[in-house]
């Protein structure tokens, strides 16, 4: 009762991955009456890829969509006094902050931007360090990047400068929301119960539309209205950590117990001990209640002492993957596609450690059939192989394309491509060896 008397803090989740849609965040700012907007834009390997950009050009290495997002959002946040917290700095938060400041000046806006630094720990990585899968650093290829997961306290330094935009590189995703809560309510970093509750809230918000009906809908069973205009979520959070999740008005999507439960456990290992730099959060003691009208309440929940070590994502060069695809349709489609796959394997299989042959439309995703096997009208052959160099990897697509003239009857629509792979492995580092700091830039 007491906690309901005061106005809650409203945090919007405006992006759930690097390539996420732009408009939902703008709708949250313009119509969602939010205080803070968090933008999660960094998958595990995104930093490693950005690090390659930074090596090529020291003024780059931040998220490729950062400036497009900011061009859309900055005028709106300046008008409404919304503050943004984002990890879109990727491998180069300082360059990202400078680029956003330049953009703000061009737009005629006066904004303060804080860059949170210190997650880059590549200089501290040694060959004998253990990985979480039992291997050692020396077992990987050439290292590209090593970034420790910073936590909410690192972002808090940025918020305390009064910055309108706090931009970091690698931080734990839920910390993006926990930091504004700590800043607003004065929650202490060693108040494990509140750290756990705030982590649950951040975890639910950080994937954007995955809380509001994205990655959820199944026609006839799990219907979601107007998914084309999927609205992104916000949380109203009170001082005791109770939260009500909702979504931007006049948008599509749905928040229900079902969407919330699915997202609560998404990418979680032990639900009673979800480890972040901020806490060991307990999601098993969380209580969820459907309030109707696309509103779900989260209460209770808690946490224990945070880990002594920070997780470090290590990016390394892992060679190249070449792929080729070609379609067969009509009577005997599958038999012709399987023959085509056998031919490619016989022609180039010995050049690759691993060559994968799939039939799209048949068994490419689960590797088998569950239930009655339908007869496919068409089948698309896909062959993929990994190689040390791009030229060898390209052989896969070349041989698939050559099936036009050298394979079974009536193969069509061949496509081929090659991409460099950056592998990602995980290790750990004592937190005291990862000091973070922040710098501010005025636009």
């Amino acid at each position, binding site marked *: 009762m007491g906690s309901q008397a005061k106005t809650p803090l409203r945090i919007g989740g405006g992006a759930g991955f690097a390539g996420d849609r732009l408009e939902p965040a703008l709708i949250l700012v313009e119509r969602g009456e939010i205080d803070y907007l968090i933008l999660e834009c960094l998958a*595990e*390997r995104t930093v490693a890829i950005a690090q390659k950009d930074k090596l090529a050009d020291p003024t780059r290495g931040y998220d490729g969509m950062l400036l497009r997002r900011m061009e859309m959002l900055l005028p709106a946040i300046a008008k409404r006094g919304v503050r943004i917290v984002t990890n879109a700095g990727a491998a180069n938060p300082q360059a990202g902050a400078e680029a956003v400041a330049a953009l703000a000046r061009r737009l005629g806006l006066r904004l303060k931007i804080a860059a949170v630094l210190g997650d880059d720990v590549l200089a501290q990585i040694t060959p004998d360090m253990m990985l*979480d*899968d039992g291997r050692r650093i020396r077992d990987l290829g050439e290292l590209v990047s090593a970034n420790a997961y910073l936590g909410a306290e690192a972002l808090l330094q940025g918020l305390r400068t009064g910055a309108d935009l706090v931009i970091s590189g690698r931080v734990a995703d839920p910390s993006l929301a926990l930091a504004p809560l700590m800043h607003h309510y004065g929650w202490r970093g060693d108040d494990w119960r509140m750290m756990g509750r705030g982590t649950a809230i951040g975890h639910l918000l950080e994937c954007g539309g995955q809380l509001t009906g994205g*990655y*959820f809908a*199944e026609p006839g*069973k*799990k219907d979601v209205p107007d998914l084309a205009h999927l609205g992104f979520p916000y949380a109203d959070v009170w001082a005791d950590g109770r939260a009500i999740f909702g979504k931007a008005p006049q948008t599509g999507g749905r928040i229900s117990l*079902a969407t919330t*439960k*699915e*997202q*609560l*456990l*998404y*990418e*979680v*290992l*032990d*639900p*009673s001990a979800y480890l972040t730099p901020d806490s060991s959060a307990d999601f*098993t*003691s*969380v*209580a*969820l209640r459907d309030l109707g009208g696309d509103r779900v309440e989260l209460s209770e929940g808690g946490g224990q002492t945070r880990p002594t070590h920070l997780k470090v994502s290590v990016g390394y060069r*892992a060679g190249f*993957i070449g792929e080729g695809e070609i379609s067969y349709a009509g009577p005997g489609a599958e038999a012709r596609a399987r023959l085509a796959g056998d031919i490619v394997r016989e022609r180039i299989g010995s050049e690759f450690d*691993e*060559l*994968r042959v*799939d039939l*799209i439309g048949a068994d*490419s*995703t*689960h*590797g*088998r059939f*569950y*239930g009655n096997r339908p007869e496919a009208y068409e089948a698309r052959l*896909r062959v*993929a*192989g*990994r190689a040390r160099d791009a030229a060898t990897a390209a052989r896969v697509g070349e041989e698939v394309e050559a099936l036009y003239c050298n394979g079974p009857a009536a193969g069509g629509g061949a496509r081929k491509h090659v991409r460099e*792979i*950056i*592998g*990602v*492995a*995980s290790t750990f580092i004592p937190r005291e060896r990862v000091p973070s700091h922040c710098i501010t830039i005025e636009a």
Partner: protein
Amino acid sequence: MRRLHDIAHARTGDKGDTLTLSIFAYRPEDFLRLCDTATVARMKHHLQGIVAGEITRYELPRLDGLHFVCRQALKGGVNTSLALDTHGKSLSYAALSLPLEE
């Protein structure tokens, strides 16, 4: 034949080569049925060829759900796997194909 799909919904996530899989009963009264159907032994058998490592099951009665952590399930993980669905995003529906324990 009735399947988990008739009584439950599911979502998968990935952490390196580990697949996380949560399955929830639509109706609280089906939670025990879900627990009886989706045992670790049955899931291991059902997902053979997909999950090569250990499967750990967590029970979440407050959510009417089960949570599975499946090791060595993603052919090395999202970055280096040759599979089409490197994240295992589609695997929730492989799990929901499990026949119900009648």
